[in-house]
């Protein structure tokens, strides 16, 4: 017997770990994965984000102007009418052409709803920008696909200038971490993101043209250069991302009302965009779901869930339209739902503070 064989026999009875034994490690991994999913929103590019957490968050909503309330009442009427009309059509726009989602979905007229959203958004009040050394607090909930998955709650703090991040690690310890500059990271600090939003065109057509041609979203890093994206898909994704990011960023400070109005009007002009009713976020709040149906056989439908009166971003919901397999393994069966919900946010002076 040579030395290697003797060595191979040493501690050879050591067992492979059983699933039970590995459960805590697996849960810890899935917790991290859930945080990335939620922090990412629709931004597939945000995987590059160091630390894997969402970088930005939302300020508590500001009181609405009287005109918004009036607008909300008008919308309720408009939606009721649209639904009544949609009854005679085959599921409404963008719904059933490619098989459609598994459960019955009711749709509204996207032109009516998104114009209403634009009117409401255009009349929001604004607030002054946070200081670079202030922190954005964000609390959100994620519900993973699968019947037995409990919603998970996450809290995170991001310094407005993006230099530090804070939160609880999977073992429950609070930690503040530096975010070193990363030239390979195309993600922006909250401050830089707010600056980017302020520079965007406020005219819907110009905004749409800008988003379609924005190299920030087109020039992929070398390792993703083989990926291509349909311009309509990208336009919808980027506009959704602006709405989500603004929601985390301190809406009133970061999102110019006229820009938000232009985003809804631009969305209404993208072929394949639709509006679904009764879409719920991860904590069960009902909203309207704005979505885009690309050509072909999409794997899933992703909804941006908006509060139906204020049109604030509540969260997101993804519904698998068909089975997703990796090789022979069924990972997500058709009908699986992943959802998130933004449940609290604030601008605070120190990490760990919540108001």
């Amino acid at each position, binding site marked *: 017997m040579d030395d290697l064989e003797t060595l191979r026999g040493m501690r050879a009875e050591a067992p*492979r*770990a059983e699933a039970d034994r590995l459960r805590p490690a697996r849960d810890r*991994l899935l917790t991290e994965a859930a945080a990335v*999913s939620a922090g990412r929103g629709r931004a597939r590019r945000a995987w590059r984000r160091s630390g894997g957490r969402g970088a930005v968050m939302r300020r508590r909503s500001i009181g609405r102007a009287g005109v918004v309330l009036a607008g909300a009442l008008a919308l309720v009427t408009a939606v009721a009418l649209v639904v009544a009309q949609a009854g005679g059509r085959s599921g409404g726009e963008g719904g059933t052409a490619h098989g459609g989602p598994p459960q019955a979905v009711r749709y509204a007229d996207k032109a009516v709803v998104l114009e209403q959203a634009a009117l409401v958004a255009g009349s929001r009040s604004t607030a002054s920008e946070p200081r670079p050394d202030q922190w954005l607090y964000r609390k959100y909930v994620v519900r*993973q*696909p699968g019947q037995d998955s409990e919603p998970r709650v996450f809290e995170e703090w991001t310094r407005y200038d993006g230099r530090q991040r804070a939160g609880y690690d999977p073992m429950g310890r609070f930690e503040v971490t530096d975010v070193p500059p990363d030239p390979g990271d195309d993600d922006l600090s909250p401050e830089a993101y707010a600056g980017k939003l302020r520079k965007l065109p406020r005219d819907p057509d110009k905004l749409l043209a800008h988003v379609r041609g924005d190299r920030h979203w087109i020039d992929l890093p070398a390792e993703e250069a083989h990926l291509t994206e349909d311009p309509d898909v990208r336009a919808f994704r980027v506009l959704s991302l602006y709405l989500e990011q603004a929601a985390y960023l301190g809406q009133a400070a970061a999102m110019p009302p006229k820009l938000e109005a232009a985003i809804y009007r631009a969305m209404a002009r993208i072929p394949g965009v639709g509006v679904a009713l009764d879409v719920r976020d991860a904590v069960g709040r009902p909203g309207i779901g704005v979505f885009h149906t690309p050509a072909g056989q999409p794997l899933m439908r992703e909804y941006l869930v908006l509060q139906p009166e204020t049109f604030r971003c509540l969260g997101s919901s993804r519904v698998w339209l068909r089975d997703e397999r*990796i090789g022979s393994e069924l990972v997500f069966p058709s009908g699986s739902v992943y959802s998130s919900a933004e449940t609290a946010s604030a601008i605070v002076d120190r990490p760990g503070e919540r108001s």
Partner: protein
Amino acid sequence: MIAHADRPGAAHGADDAEVIRRSLDEPDAFALLFDRHAPELHRYVTRRLGDSLADDIVSDTFLAAFRRRDRYDTTRPDARPWLYGIAANLIGKHRRTEVRSYRALARTGADEVAESYADRVEAEVTASAAQRELAGALASLSVGDRDVLLLVAWADLSYEEVADALDIPVGTVRSRLHRARKRTRAALGGVDPTAVEEGTRHG
């Protein structure tokens, strides 16, 4: 790609690289990689450090791997070298613990690492004379040489895979393995009595 039938990472239609690529869009998919490799990785770490440290190291390995999954070289279908390389760094932080257990085993014949899993399987907690000699040799190796030797002997990695895992040239794998096996052969042959004493340098 070369499919090793006994290796879950390469046996199915979707190799590890595909799973990692998928996990960029669907982070949950990374759990598949965990299910494929965690049981065997846990066994490997258990053999080196005992099973309580193995829980933490396996957990930290997959979390670290997940966080840097966008940098995975997707031309490599089998993720084992990548995962074992990450684990090697984490194991390295416990080298005092590891070396202490080899020394104790060499001195007393009692194996505290085997005792750590003896409640789960029938394990030989008292080592043979040959294994005591071997433990003495393991204690005397540098961290780099020991990593190479044990990745070959206990993790069944090929030279190329060890080179990938430790990010060293294959030639360095060969020379480290040669050096390490000179010690283990000498220990078993009883030729090199300095092997155990030299271990104190690395404790």
